[in-house]
């Protein structure tokens, strides 16, 4: 890992997974790869957090899991969004947008310089 990455902030992992799966079914490794690529390696999803999160969301009924065959002909567990998962994603996105907008307002109002990346 040459470029430094941010650890995924607690609580945003769910929304990232849901969003990633909204385009189709993926296995765990693919999920972490997609997130890494899409954020241009800015966000690093730790496996130690990813799998428990997948299991948790499956238990909640947001995800449906199914075993299938991967690109290289291996048995892999694929995840996809359930109907509840889709609803959940929509709600989470709304919350996230409201949250970031609010934070942005605060930051703008105080006219403080934006924090520099280390």
């Amino acid at each position, binding site marked *: 890992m040459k470029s430094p990455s941010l650890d995924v902030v607690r609580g945003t992992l769910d929304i990232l997974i849901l969003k990633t799966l909204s385009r189709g079914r993926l*296995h*765990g*490794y693919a999920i972490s790869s997609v997130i890494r690529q899409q954020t241009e390696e800015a966000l690093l999803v*730790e*496996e*130690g957090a990813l*799998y*428990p999160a*997948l*299991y*948790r969301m*499956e*238990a909640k*009924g947001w995800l*449906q*899991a*199914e*075993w299938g065959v*991967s690109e*290289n002909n*291996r*048995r*892999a*567990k694929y995840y996809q969004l*359930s109907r509840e998962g889709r609803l959940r994603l929509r709600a989470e996105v709304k919350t996230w947008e409201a949250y970031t907008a609010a934070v942005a307002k605060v930051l703008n109002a105080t006219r403080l310089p934006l924090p520099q990346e280390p």
Partner: protein
Amino acid sequence: MSRILLWRRYLRMFGPDIEADVEEELQFHLDAKVDELIAAGWKLESARAEARRHFGDLARVSETCQHIGKRRERSMEHAEYLRGWWQDFTYAARQLRHRWGTTLLVVLTLGMGIGAVVSVFSMVDAVLLRPLPFPSPDRIVTIWSTRQGRDDVVTPRNFDTWRRESRSFDRLAALQRSTFTLSQAGAATQAAGGLVSADYFSVFGLSPELGRTFTVEEDRRPRAHLVILSHRLWRTRFGGDKQILGSQIRLNREPYTVIGIMPPKFDLRADAEQLWVPLALSGQEMSWTGGILYVVGRLRPQITREQAQAGMSVLARSLEAQYPEMNRGRGIRVGDFAADLVGEYRQRLLLLLGAVGFVLLIACANVANLLLARGAGRAQELAVRAALGASRVRIIRQLLTESLFLALSSTAFGLVATMWVTSVVRSVGVGAIPRLTDASVNGFVLGGALGLALVSTLLSGLLPAVRAAHVDIQSVLRQGGRSSPGFVRDSVRSSYIAAEVALTLVLLAGAGLLIRTAIAAERVQPGFSPQHVVTGRTALPLNTYTTAEQVVRTYEQLLEALANRPGVVSAALTSKVPLGTSTVGLALKPGTVTPPMKEELAAELRYISSGYFTTMQIPLRRGREFNEHDRSSSTQVAIVNEILAHRLWPAQNPVGQQLRLPELDTGNATWQVVGVVADVRDNGLMNEPPPALYVPLAQVSINPWHWVEQSLYLVARTRTDTMAVSDPLQAALRTVDPELPLGDLRLMEERLAQSVSIARFYTLLLTILGMCGLVLTAAGIYSVVAYFVSRQRGEIGLRLALGATPSAVLLLVIRQGMRPVAIGIVLGLTASVAVARLLASQLYGVTAADPATLAAVATVLAAVAALACYLPARQAVKVDPLVALRDE
């Protein structure tokens, strides 16, 4: 729906092995990472190490995932299980709605059965199971002085000795039942009451609702004029006015100060005591040899009733040595207060519970047969389900759910019936049975009802369900669910019928024996003629009428006034009327002068006026009646009844014999027998007449007058009973002393009816239950035979086509139907002999194993069964051979 299917697919492919799944998934991740690294130019070994390092704590992640996965698995199984039940339930509801006719029939049948059982159970709960509303009620005992195994009231001397010398009781208290004249606003009424020792109430662990109870000082002579009222009397007579506390009321014409009101829970029975005054035993009463006291006690902690009994038995022997004249041959019994309170009703209630239980069993058998028939009709549906992969257990569960559904609906129906019954019981108030009015549908009864629903589900549904699930799929699907030989000679159905018949026979036998008893009681000669005889009790206050002469003179005036009333044919006085509820009855031991008695004999003593036997129409067998020449100054005379005469002088003429009555007069005086009268069934029609001794009231001294509280019954035979019952008695009392009370006023005919009313009601109940059983059984036999016939149409058609006569076919079907009936009758007869023994104590004039009764009910049952077979059998004969064979 799609989610379930998806999950099922997942389950079926991989099974519930979460651990392996997690391991595999993570391994896939690592391998993919290694592949990626190798593609980026890493060496295999270092790529593997880097992948592991990058992943972090593999074991912990794996464990977390497994944990979440397993929990999910469990909750899904749970949900699946519940969903299965819900499916069964909605399916059952649909099925039952679809066949609403059968459903209604089943719910009515089972509902009646369950309702009957729950109704009786709620009474059993109120009367027998629920503990008395006192602190540690199991410590409360009753203590009786026994003679020849029968409980008897206790002499003051014995009570006093028990209280001082026994070590088994915290407290020992006594009650002397008495009737008080309560005067209010010029009108005098009588009220049941008691004279009680100071710690009577604390034996029950009760403190008064208002005020206080008696102190030890108040329990001494001279008797303090203090009174404690029952809650009921306070409410009904004094309007629940709290001001009554400390004020005075008039009892037996004297002012008594009200010092306390007892709480409502002390009103255990409708006929219980309504007021209490101090007992304050006098020295004179201590020497009485006749018992007057009911003794209750509270056991010491750690002392069992058996230990107390052992101690009292020892005491009984030492008392016999110390006071032989009052204790010869006597024992002591320590009884459970609650059990003694309920008495014989316990057995009656339990027998009734057994009887309704039988009806429920019969109903269950009927429902089982219905379900069996329906199960057979549904063979195809079930076979299809089985073919589609439903397991046997699953099908049984499905069918049992239907049964449970039925049982629950029936229980709901039964509970409605129970509430109706208990509200009727509450409003009618069967007074004699303690706490019956407390019967209600409470949590305990509800629990019992639900338990009953489960039991009847299993009883009626399990076997049909198991059999339906064991259907041979192939043959059923091939035959399209039509007759298969397995259903023709169906042993299960037959055994249900046999069981129903046996149960019904037992019920009918019980009812039959009770009916025979009622008939026998009807035929019993009471020993007197009750028509047009009015009776009522009065009492002369002890403070106004202090000498025997005064008492006798007043009563003679009363008798004269009564005899002279218009409409009165003849009149008399007696200390106890036959079948009276009065507790004034005395036992005594007549000592004969010649020949000397070997053993003691108890006899009931009555003081009567002249004309008593004429008025009651009690036949005089020998000698003469009392007349106006039998005065206190003349020879003391007595009349005995036939039983007593036979016991005392089996081979001699009783008239002219001499009697010594040590309890009646302290001296060595003798009483001369001047007459013998016929026996009277004094203690109920179904009880043998007791030995009785009559003395003229003119010769009774003041002490024996006190025993009966100077009270006597006025007896008048009138020309008709159209006139108001109380008129002649009331009028006679007014002419002598307007303040004299009149209580226990009743026609003798009413007393006669009352004495058998409970037994008769009980007989009626059992007869109704027997009839319910009979109807249910007949319906069961009918439906089974009809089912056989419908299933055997082909066979019957074949027989007819081959030349069998219709009557031969008829006989064949009836014989087939009657076989289980015959088996049931044999079983039922055997069971009846055993069960009837439990009834023995309630039978009169018929033995428990009475062959005539058993033969009669067996015949009735067989006849009804034959009819139930005949009706569907006639349908069999009408089968058109051609149509039947074509259908096959």
